[in-house]
């Protein structure tokens, strides 16, 4: 029988252990799929953020910001940028309509809040499906252990009434039972690695977003002052 040495424990494992093995297998498939998806997402987010920040440092003009957001759609900073610009446009028009141009810097906290809302949404998106990895990390070893304990229990129950319970009688059953623990750990270890890696990445991007928010806030404050003073000059000239 080919492959007997490797697959024999799986075939001898019993229904309960088989169900656990299937669950672990599915968990493994899903967590690797999450890994593949997230690694691409984070890589693109990182590189585009870097490029965006480089461009941002060159041209800190408010007029160019909307251009930037079209260039780097995958960067998590872009939603902040668009949210800020939208908020700015809407509120500015509102203020102009009510002839309160000199108080434009009252808008700045609103813009900051809009950016923070966008940031939390973006972060949520970045961290989506990471909870599954955390759950896998926690649950897979326990599931494996459950299968093993059940297998050992089965082995000992089958020994009931045996006259000479030797180690050789118990060993095959226990070695079959241990398969689920091995599988549980095989599933949990990569999931733990992925989870911690992605959470670290998300934290990095979060820090990046915070810095970006404060920077943009400064820019908008300046812009507000500039527009207000321009308006004041206009009214003075009149």
């Amino acid at each position, binding site marked *: *029988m*080919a*492959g*007997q*040495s*490797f*697959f*024999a424990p799986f075939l*001898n494992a019993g229904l309960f252990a088989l169900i656990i093995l299937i669950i672990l*297998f599915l968990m*493994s*498939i*899903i967590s*690797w*799929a*999450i*890994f*593949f*998806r997230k690694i691409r997402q984070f890589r693109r987010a990182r590189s585009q953020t870097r490029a965006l920040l480089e461009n941002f440092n060159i041209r800190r003009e408010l007029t160019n910001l909307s251009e930037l957001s079209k260039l780097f759609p995958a960067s998590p900073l872009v939603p902040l940028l668009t949210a800020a610009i939208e908020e700015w446009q809407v509120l500015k028009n509102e203020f102009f309509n009510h002839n309160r141009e000199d108080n434009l810097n009252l808008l700045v906290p609103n813009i900051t809040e809009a950016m923070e809302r966008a940031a939390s949404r973006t972060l949520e998106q970045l961290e989506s499906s990471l909870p599954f990895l955390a759950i896998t990390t926690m649950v897979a070893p326990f599931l494996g252990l459950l299968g093993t304990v059940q297998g050992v229990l089965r082995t000992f129950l089958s020994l009931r009434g045996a*006259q*000479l319970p*030797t180690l*050789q*009688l118990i060993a*095959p059953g226990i070695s079959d039972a241990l398969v689920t623990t091995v599988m549980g750990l095989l599933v949990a270890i990569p999931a733990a690695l992925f989870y911690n890696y992605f959470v670290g990445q998300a934290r990095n991007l979060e820090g990046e977003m915070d810095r970006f928010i404060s920077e943009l806030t400064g820019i908008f404050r300046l812009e507000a002052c500039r527009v207000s003073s321009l308006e004041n000059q206009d009214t003075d000239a009149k």
Partner: protein
Amino acid sequence: MKRELLISFAGHIGILIFIGIASGFRQQRRDSLRPSIITVQILRGHEPATGKSEPATQLLQTSPKPVTSKKTPGKPKNTSPPKTEVIRGAGLGARIEGASALGYNFYLQQMLERIASNWQDPYSGNARNIKTTVAFVIERSGLISDIKIENGSGDPLFDESCLRAVIITKKLPPLPDEFTAPRLKIHLEFER
């Protein structure tokens, strides 16, 4: 997400197939080193393996491997002997022909202990010297079948006791993985 799931699933299946094929190759190599069925003779008593009973160890050899079948009876052991090993347990001894048995001595030991514990010697305490060989087959699941007396002692009481010991043992643990053939034929010699 669908695409990643597909990739991941394919990867898992690929790894499983790879491991299966790799262990299949390993198994095949191991199989080629080992006859498919080996015969084991179990001896009662504590005489050493090179002792007087050596010429009597005539095995019914069902193995395709010629290693043990070229053994000629009556020949002294030290001229090109097949690798013979004697294991002992619970007052019984097993003689295994062919080095291939080395991997699962523990199993035979266990079998000896089981059968010995079920054997009630009708002449215990008497100084009689008789011998019976019982042949049987252990299936992969550990079930004992085809039990018959091969070489009777001529004493029905003794023969029956030996037969009974094997019959009431009924089931042994499943054959170990090291033994790859579907069944293991045993010639068990009860001697006193």
